[in-house]
């Protein structure tokens, strides 16, 4: 019985508090849990002014932890490139780094085991995370919100990539041939390429053999081709906010993928769908394909939904979809204006 009181007592008191003290304002306001960099002001969390940028003008070569510490003693930004020598054993001393106007190349860093730059918000050139030597399991850039020229992650041993604040990559984004990568946080990524949708900014997620899940909850636009391909163990693909790609949509050779839904509305170039074991594909809001529509080599595909499709400005190819009936293809193409030719071969009966 005493034990019951131990549990019920706080519950009753808390209920009293919630029902009486908080509503009547007789208790002092509760403290807020403000994030780092914020302070409580007038009952809310307000971001505090940052230290001004102090820019090192030139390229920064880091060969030792002392080089990193010396840099941070005076600066927090680089108007040039940042490169690291294999002799650099830790990037802890580079925690101050906030912006790089040129390239940041994380390559050949065999002696580093943890790569986290907590303050980095911007890389204007190429952010290249491509290491051949083993050692680093995780790359974490928790504050990175933008990349200019391009972002490459091509890192044989990497297991976890954490870029939770990344919102835009102005150039290309290549997540490519990471054999052990199993966890990717790109939860804030909205855009690859520019707003004008110039077509040379591609987003490739290719040949990541351990990546079972790709979630891009905020991705709206890719200016060039979006290619999700040859990720052999991928079972989940989620892009619930995707509206448009400027030059193509390519989902192929992810041989463990069984179904996916993408609410994309327009594709500026071609659509290429080829996954041997996928059974259901839904592109329910897709209305315009400015190039070709290719649905090929989906051996198990039996449900294909493109109910909003109105125009294909190129050719249409349905080939070697052995479980997709001709009636199902008829239903997809019913009422669709196809400017080019239609080819249907070797599909289901």
């Amino acid at each position, binding site marked *: 019985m005493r034990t019951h009181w131990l549990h019920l007592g706080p519950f009753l008191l808390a209920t009293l508090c919630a029902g009486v003290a908080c509503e009547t304002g007789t208790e002092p*306001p*509760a403290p807020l849990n403000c994030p780092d960099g914020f302070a409580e002001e007038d009952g809310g969390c307000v971001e505090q002014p*940052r230290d001004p940028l102090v820019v090192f003008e030139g390229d920064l070569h880091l060969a030792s932890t002392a080089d990193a510490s010396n840099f941070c003693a005076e600066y927090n930004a680089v108007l040039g490139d940042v490169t690291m020598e294999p002799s650099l054993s830790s990037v802890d001393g580079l925690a101050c780094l906030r912006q790089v106007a040129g390239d940041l190349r994380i390559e050949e860093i065999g002696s580093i085991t943890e790569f986290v730059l907590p303050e980095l918000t911007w890389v204007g050139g*190429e952010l290249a995370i491509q290491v051949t030597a083993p050692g680093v399991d995780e790359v974490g850039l928790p504050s990175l919100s933008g990349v200019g020229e*391009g972002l*490459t992650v091509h890192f044989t041993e990497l297991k976890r990539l954490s870029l939770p604040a990344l919102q835009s990559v102005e150039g*290309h984004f*290549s997540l490519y041939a990471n054999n052990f990568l199993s966890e990717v946080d790109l939860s804030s990524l909205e855009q690859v390429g520019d707003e004008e949708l110039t077509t040379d900014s*591609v987003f*490739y997620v290719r040949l990541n053999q351990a990546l079972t899940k790709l979630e891009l909850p905020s991705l709206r636009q890719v200016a060039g081709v979006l290619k999700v391909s040859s990720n052999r163990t991928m079972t989940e693909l989620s892009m619930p906010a995707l509206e448009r790609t400027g030059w193509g949509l390519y989902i192929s050779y992810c041989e463990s993928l069984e179904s996916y839904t993408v609410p994309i509305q327009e594709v500026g170039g071609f659509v290429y769908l080829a996954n041997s074991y996928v059974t259901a594909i839904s592109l329910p809001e897709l209305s315009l394909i400015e190039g070709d529509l290719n649905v090929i080599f989906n051996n198990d595909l039996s449900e294909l939904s493109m109910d909003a499709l109105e125009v294909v400005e190129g050719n249409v190819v349905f080939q070697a979809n052995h479980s997709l009936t001709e009636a199902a293809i008829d239903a997809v193409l019913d009422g669709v204006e196809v400017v080019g030719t239609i080819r249907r071969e070797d599909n289901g009966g």
Partner: protein
Amino acid sequence: MVMRLLRALFGLSLVFHLVAYGECGGEPPDDFVCPDGTVMNDAGHCLLPPEDVIRLDEEPPAGCEDPPPPPTPLTDCAATFEGDPHFETEAQMAEFCESYECVRGGVTIGGTEKLDDIEPNTEITTLAPLACLRTSRFLVVTQTQNLTHIDLPNYEQSDGGFNIIVNQNIEEVSLPALKSIGGDLSVQLNEELTSVSMPVLEQVGEFFLIRGNPELPTSEAWALRDQLCPDAVGASTTIAGNGPN
């Protein structure tokens, strides 16, 4: 008595946590307004405007103002093979060149794919009998053991990838006519490779990868990359794990 006191303290502690962080704590008041110059986000926190970013003010090199247009398949081939030829011997190459100069599909040269492995090729010592070849959907040279030079003097265009991967004794790659690669340029894991020459190469549609060739000077790999305009590589450039300059 002590136990009762401890229980009471424990209970009060829980109450404090509920008040401080539970339903009746941790939220800004309803009439809270962010200070001037800040904007409230979804979490109810007031954010400063984003910091201005620093950029390099670089002009593209002369002649590189616009990205190159995508290549179109060659249309002036005298004869085009429609399939995906695989060459394991020089005799096969010679036979091919008696009738064709272009390939609609992909060309593979070297090792033979088995069920779960690739059997290295020891037959091929030269690609001279394939000198006729001008274009293909892709081209792969892999798992050769006795080939020392890749020399395809008339090869102009790969509509997809161009891959030279895992060749034990290749020392030199010479593609004097190769102008465009639609997919990846991939030169990887060739232990004896010392030189790659593609003097008229203008564009690579996807990835530019020169990696893991320990005898190839890194500077030579970068020289090939720098011969292309900055925007002439569609995806990323990886030059790593090659030899010293």
